[in-house]
């Protein structure tokens, strides 16, 4: 069976959560018996501008056929101004205003949707719900469409056009139970639709702690790691301040390391905060292995791959308690703690940093959870079976 993937951007240069997850699925499906994968996407790398940085055309990316199309330029300033206006009362936004905002957000790329519709893919998956190709592609390919929404509790989910996006595909795939619950609360009509809570596969990759330490210059100090984009919306500024206060209360060598692309530089002059910037995969895994714990400060995650990677690397996690999916992982696995404010952050981090038996116990529980539900063979098998069921159901419906 041939499976299509429609994404706003795609490639090994792209580090976004939904895009990385889709690429991992596509690359693994492409080498599975009886399956092939084809990607339809823009030429963009940067999700802020959607500038055509990659050439248009058809390419092979790690064994997957990728069709790239140019998109219309994005008016970033107008988009941000309009977002501020609409996000204040998202449930009152009209269909016309929402569609105008979706056009501003982009990437406006009709060729992507046309190519996916004209393809011979048995099913076409769309990732994530938010962007133009999904908004216009899912209703058009309805019976062939499978939506991976990556639903977040954010203002646009209340915009009218997204109802059709969620309600018209023949199947939905969620990263977590919490994401599914959120989507079903917002769009009850999807409750009885074929759906799957899939998650994503995790495979620990090579990377030595000592080499990674040397590369970012943390020396032999113990550290907690925040991995991913450094931006205020992901809670990194709050984390940096929390950590600085923690260090005032608990003096010692513990350091907070931010590793990932930096959009908003954390406040300067904070004690023992090291911003390493983007790191390669080997360094990332080395940093994970050498860390006391991973901290996920974001309240907006639908899965959080880095939390699963931390468990695969054998360390416990501390997550933002307002983020239901990451907190849900911790509750189900017993592999981490969470915080809802500074006081609980302080108490939880003191335990993780000061009680190595507790940290090891949590890490082991997290690893068992990853082994049971988030290893690639398990994930891929479940995904393939789901797609086969959806396809078979479509054929039955077509016959009747």
């Amino acid at each position, binding site marked *: 069976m041939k499976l299509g993937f429609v994404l706003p951007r795609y490639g090994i240069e792209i580090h976004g959560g939904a895009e990385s997850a889709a690429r991992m699925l596509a690359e693994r499906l492409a080498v599975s018996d009886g399956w092939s994968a084809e990607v339809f996407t823009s030429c963009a790398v940067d999700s802020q501008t959607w500038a055509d940085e990659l050439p248009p055309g058809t390419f092979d990316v790690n064994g997957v056929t990728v069709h790239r199309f140019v998109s219309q330029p994005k008016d970033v300033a107008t988009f941000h101004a309009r977002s501020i206006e609409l996000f204040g009362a998202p449930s009152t936004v009209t269909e016309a205003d929402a569609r105008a905002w979706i056009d501003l957000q982009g990437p406006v790329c009709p060729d992507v949707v046309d190519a996916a519709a004209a393809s011979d893919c048995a099913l076409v998956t769309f990732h994530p719900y938010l962007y133009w190709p999904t908004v216009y592609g899912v209703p058009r390919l309805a019976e062939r469409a499978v939506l991976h929404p990556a639903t*977040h*509790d*954010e203002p646009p989910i209340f915009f009218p056009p997204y109802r059709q996006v969620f309600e018209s595909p023949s199947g939905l795939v969620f990263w977590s*139970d919490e994401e*599914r619950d959120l989507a*079903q*609360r917002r769009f*009850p*009509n999807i*409750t*009885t639709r*074929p*759906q*799957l*809570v899939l998650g994503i596969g995790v495979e620990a990759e090579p990377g030595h702690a000592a080499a990674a330490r040397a590369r970012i210059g943390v020396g032999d100090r113990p550290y907690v790691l925040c991995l991913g984009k450094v931006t*205020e*919306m*992901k*809670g990194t*500024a*709050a984390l940096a*301040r*929390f950590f600085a*206060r923690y260090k005032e209360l608990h003096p010692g060598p513990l350091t907070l390391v931010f590793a990932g692309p930096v959009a908003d530089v954390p406040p300067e002059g904070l004690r023992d905060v090291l911003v390493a910037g983007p790191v390669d995969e080997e360094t990332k895994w080395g940093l994970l292995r050498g860390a006391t714990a991973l901290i996920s400060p974001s*309240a*907006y995650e639908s899965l959080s791959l880095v939390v699963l990677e931390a468990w695969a690397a054998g360390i416990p996690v501390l997550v933002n*308690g*307002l983020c239901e999916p990451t*907190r849900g992982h*911790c*509750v189900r*696995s*017993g*592999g*981490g*703690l*969470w915080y*809802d*404010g*500074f*006081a*609980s952050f302080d*108490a*939880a981090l003191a*335990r993780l940093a000061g009680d190595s*038996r*507790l940290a*090891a*116990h*949590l890490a082991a529980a997290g690893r068992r959870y990853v082994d049971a539900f988030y290893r690639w063979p398990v994930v891929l*098998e*479940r995904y393939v*079976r*789901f797609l*086969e*069921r959806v396809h078979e*159901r479509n054929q*039955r419906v077509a016959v009747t």
Partner: protein
Amino acid sequence: MPDADAASLMADIEREVRERRRAGQIDDEYERELDRIFDAVAPPGAVGSGLGAALMRAERAAVIDPVGPVASRIPGVALLRRALRKLMAFYVEHVVRQVTAFGVMVVRAMRLLGERVDAVEARSPVTDPRLVNLALPVASDFDVAPWFDLVVKTLAPVSGRVLHAECGNGALLVALHDAGIDAYGIDPRPDAAAFADERRVEVRNAAVIDHLRAVPAGALGGMVVSGCAERLATGDIVELVDRAARVLAPGAPLVVLSRDPKGDLDPIAADLAPGRPLHPPTWAFLLARRGFELIETRTSDKRAPASYAVAGVRAGS
């Protein structure tokens, strides 16, 4: 390290925080400032991991800052705002003190109420979180295979999706699928999903009543209830029938499969579940009460354990 789950570790942390706050070991003003930064990037309306966390956030929100921002890009406006703030400070601070005191008292009263609710919940097997969260093994379900023919025959003519709640090992879903019926299952027990994957059927990890609450009116073409039918508390059974009547389309059948209470009960469920199997006439009564028609009861003395099926059709076909 003793076997401590994350939730009990977090409860321990919450207790520690409360004690430190009571003992004055936390710099309230500085912490509030930090928490404001944290709250600024939180999803609107997020309450966190439970009542304790929600109350903590409510307590933070109850403390009102009387010093409003004065910055402005328009020349002179900042100066004007600063002057107004100074002139009105005596009044604003007076009001803020009262509102803050009220807010803090309300949160404290809710905390006391929460503690009492916790104590009440812990004294009832129906609400005790230690029992509610205890998943009984799928293997303890009775074998519904002898009822496959009846269920398939009842559901074969339906249009629309069929729900099997709770679907256990998914065997009935396979039979429905083989008969060309578009069915999915739900089961709150983690091991049910693993069985379902092996059998290649669609199963969601969800509690029956929670799921039915989310399903729109008239969305289902048919429904089978087993497993939970003999374990739910009586009030939940009544709600289940009410909700089934709402989510089933007019003319859609509902089939209930259960052990007979006069026969052998599953020992684990008998000891730990909040409810017991009902007698067949009780199901028939509940279905009739909610407007189901053509209600039929079949019992099977020859099958072990003794079991029965009660089927009805949603009125309005």
